[in-house]
C-alpha cells in the first residue's frame, strides 16, 4: 500500500533560485474506466524546485483544496479529507488529480521550456510552437515567455485529436 505511516509534512525549505508560479489550471482525464472524463479547474501556486517544493490548489472563492509538499525524500498531501505521505509525486498527483503529472518537469514547462533533465523534441508543423517530452505534447503558442504569462496546454496521447489527458495552465505574471 502506497501510504506511509503518518509523519508531519516536510517544511518548505526556500532556497536561492526557487521558482514561484501561480495562475489557474484545469485537468481533464479522458481515459477513465467508465468513459466519463474526470478533473476540474482550480487556482494553483507552485513554489520551490523539483527537489523541494509546494503546490497549492484553491477554489475561485479562495479556499485551499489541497497542499502538496515535498523535500528530503518526503512527499505529503493535505486536503480537507486526507493528510498523508506518498511514495512519490506521481502517486500523489494520481490521487489528487486522477493522473500522474510530472511535477519536476512542470517547473520548466510552466515557463514555456523543456525540462533540461530529459530529452525533448521541438514540435513540427507550420504554426506549431512547443515541444514533446516524457510522452507529453506541450503547446506554448499562446504563452509569452518574456512576460512570463499566458496559456500552456499539455496533452498526453495516444491521439492528438482524442488525448488521454489535457492539462491547461494559465500562468499569471
Amino acid at each position, binding site marked *: 500500500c502506497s501510504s506511509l505511516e503518518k509523519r508531519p509534512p516536510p517544511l518548505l525549505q526556500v532556497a536561492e533560485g526557487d521558482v514561484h508560479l501561480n495562475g489557474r489550471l484545469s485537468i481533464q482525464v479522458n481515459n477513465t474506466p467508465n468513459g466519463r472524463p474526470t478533473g476540474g479547474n482550480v487556482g494553483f501556486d507552485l513554489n520551490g524546485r523539483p527537489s523541494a517544493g509546494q503546490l497549492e490548489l484553491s477554489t475561485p472563492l479562495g479556499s485551499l483544496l489541497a497542499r502538496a509538499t515535498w523535500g528530503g525524500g518526503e512527499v505529503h498531501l493535505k486536503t*480537507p479529507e486526507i493528510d498523508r505521505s506518498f511514495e512519490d509525486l506521481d502517486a500523489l498527483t494520481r490521487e489528487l488529480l486522477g493522473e500522474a503529472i510530472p511535477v519536476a518537469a512542470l517547473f520548466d514547462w510552466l515557463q514555456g521550456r523543456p525540462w533540461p533533465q530529459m530529452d525533448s523534441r521541438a514540435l513540427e508543423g507550420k504554426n506549431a510552437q512547443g515541444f514533446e517530452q516524457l510522452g507529453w505534447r506541450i503547446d506554448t503558442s499562446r504563452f509569452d515567455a518574456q512576460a512570463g504569462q499566458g496559456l500552456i496546454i499539455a496533452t498526453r496521447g495516444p491521439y492528438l485529436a482524442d488525448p488521454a489527458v489535457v492539462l491547461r495552465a*494559465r500562468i499569471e505574471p
Partner: protein
Amino acid sequence: DAVAALKDFVREVKSGRAQFSQVVSSPDGQRKKTSSGSFEFQRPNQFRFAYTKPFEQVIVGDGQKVWIFDPDLNQASSRRMSQALGATPAALLAGGNLERDFKLKALASEGGLDWVQAEPKQGDGGFQSLKIAFKGSELAALEIIDGFGQRSRLDFTAVTANAPIPAERFRFVLPAGADLIEQ
C-alpha cells in the same frame, strides 16, 4: 444584534445584487490575492459570482448544480449542489434554511460592522471559520477561514436587496467548444 440582522436578511431579502472585492491571504499572511466582480442571488440556492478582475471566471448555482467556468482555460466543471453547497459561504448568502445548516453566534462589532459566526451543523464543511457581517440591515462582508488557515474576505458594495433578477442569470450554458467535467 447581528444574528437578528442575518435572520431578517434570510427571511426578507429573497434576491439581491452587489459588487464585491475579495482578498485571499495565505495562512502566514505573506501572500495576498485581490479580485473583484459582481454577485447576484435568488433564494433558495441560486447565485452567480462573476469575477472580472484580474481575470474572468464565473461560478453559477442554478439550484441543482454549481458550475465553474474559466474562459481562459475554456473549461467548465459542475458538481451536484447537495455535494457542493452544504454549509458553505454560498449557502450562508443564498441558502434557504439557515438554522438547519448553521449554528449562529453574534460577535463583537468590528470596523463598523456587526459580525455573526456561522458554524456548520453538518460536518465541518472544511472551514475553520465562517463569518458574515452587516452594516445595519445591509449585507456588508463575508470572511472564510478554511481548514488550512487561508483567509478569504469578500466586501460587498452597491448592494440592492430584492432586486428582480432574470432567471437566466442563474442558468449556465456551456459555451461552444468549451470542455465540461461533471464531478
